[in-house]
């Protein structure tokens, strides 16, 4: 009897714990789904909810390398199991010269299949991009260096972090002040928070934009510039991502002891997938080799 009691003493807490562990794990990793046939190797950690908004994110793409094309092909394949509507680009869309041939080699060829599927790309300018990229039809910037687009319940703000002058700051404040969207997502090139050794956090930019993000309830900030993947621990209620390895990689660039990092990856190129359903934003980061390097869900708390 005594022994049975001792056993119960061990088993009951284990049983209780086992009830909670799967829930916690699901919250962090989402529902992992694999598809059969041609796309059997693709692993999806997103819930594919009815009526959800789905989009992809790539950054620092425009190298024209074979690895960029391989990642583009993988992104295209993922569309068959996760039909994303559009792609956000984090800047450095074209490295080096910008002749018509460069536009082909560094953008329209690597993503040809995606473009042919009528998926729209929305770009932002990086420090390697000439200003006239804003007039390129496939970047959908409509001649503007900073702009807002609305998709479902989400407002996206593309900013020009190369040249954050007072005019742009005022525009951002004015637009955010009247924005009643459920989700507000800002995307631009330079990361206000980053644990990469090459560039790292852009304190100067953060000094200007962070108070605005806080004041007007921006939920998520997507950036590039550092050629790595990093999910930053929420900063003052805002979720920051660095997704700057869509075409260039800086292997081993993440400062491993950084207190900012929630999750990071600097061993291969990657892209990201997002799904917004009501008050949940699910995300998955995928490497060029098809490895899920991060996934999870963000609950909308800032309203």
């Amino acid at each position, binding site marked *: 009897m005594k022994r049975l009691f001792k056993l119960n003493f061990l088993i009951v807490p284990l049983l209780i714990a086992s009830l909670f562990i799967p829930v916690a794990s699901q919250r962090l990793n989402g529902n992992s789904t694999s598809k059969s046939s041609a796309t059997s190797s693709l692993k999806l950690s997103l819930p594919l909810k009815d009526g959800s908004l789905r989009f992809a994110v790539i950054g620092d793409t425009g190298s024209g390398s074979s690895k960029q094309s391989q990642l583009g092909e993988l992104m295209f394949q993922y569309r068959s199991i996760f039909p994303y509507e559009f792609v956000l680009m984090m800047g450095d869309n074209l490295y*080096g*010269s*910008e*002749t*018509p041939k*460069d*536009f*082909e080699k560094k953008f329209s060829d690597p993503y040809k299949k995606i473009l042919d599927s009528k998926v729209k790309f929305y770009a932002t300018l990086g*420090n*390697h991009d*000439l*200003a*006239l*990229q804003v*007039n*390129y*039809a496939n970047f*959908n910037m*409509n*001649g503007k260096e900073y702009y807002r687009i609305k998709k479902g319940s989400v407002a996206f703000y593309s900013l020009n*972090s*190369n*040249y*954050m*002058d*007072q*005019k742009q*700051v005022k525009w951002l404040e004015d637009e955010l002040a009247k924005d009643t969207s459920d989700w507000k997502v800002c995307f631009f090139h*330079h990361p206000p928070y980053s644990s990469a050794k090459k*560039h790292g956090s*852009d*304190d*100067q*930019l953060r*000094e*200007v934009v962070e*108070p605005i993000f806080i*004041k007007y309830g921006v939920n998520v900030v997507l950036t590039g510039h550092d050629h790595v993947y990093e999910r930053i621990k929420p900063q003052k209620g805002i979720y920051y991502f660095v997704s700057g390895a869509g075409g260039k990689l800086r292997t081993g660039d993440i400062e491993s002891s950084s207190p900012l990092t929630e999750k990071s990856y600097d061993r291969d190129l990657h892209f990201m997938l997002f799904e917004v359903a009501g008050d949940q934003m699910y995300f998955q980061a995928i490497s060029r080799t098809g490895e899920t390097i991060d996934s999870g869900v963000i609950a909308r708390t800032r309203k």
Partner: protein
Amino acid sequence: MKHKIGNGKKSACVLIVGSLVVIAFAVNSTNAQKTQNAALAPPVITSAADKAAIQTFESQVKAYVQLRNKVREDAPKLPKKGTPEQIQAYRTALEESLRKARGGAKRGDIFTPEISDYIRRTLKNEFQGKDRKELREIVFETELQGVVLRVNYPYAQSAELSEMPATLLAKLPQSTKELRYRFVGRYMLLVDRESNVIVDFMPEALP
């Protein structure tokens, strides 16, 4: 009657206290607003010589923009949703036409000695102190191989552009949307946004 007076005094007191609370709140929120935007506050210009230098700079910039916009009228039209070929044709035409129209342009036409002196002093102030270490890193980390500085010729396409921190832009004389400040090492440039042509540059801008 006394009661009435008493009530009146009470109302007045409530009104005064209420007003003080409102004023205190307003002052507080104004201060909060100021604190938030302090980094973007333009410098206060007190010297008459500096005021004159800035005025001359602004009128030179205005003259450039007028000339540029006239030249632009003759360039092929660039739609908001253009092709790479249209972008290249427009950029090349604008660059060549600008060079022709500004045939006699030379370094120092816009960055006169007076405004250069003002800018150098302004930048020196901004680059002082330990907290400005990051600012120096941002400006000097840019890889600038292949950048040749020549008035009326384009900034090399293959070179990256240094980020212009917002806090610094706020302190410089306000330019226009057609022109951009850029750093190349310690040099400061004025670059035409669309054609990428270097309109003027000044040496030893940064301390």
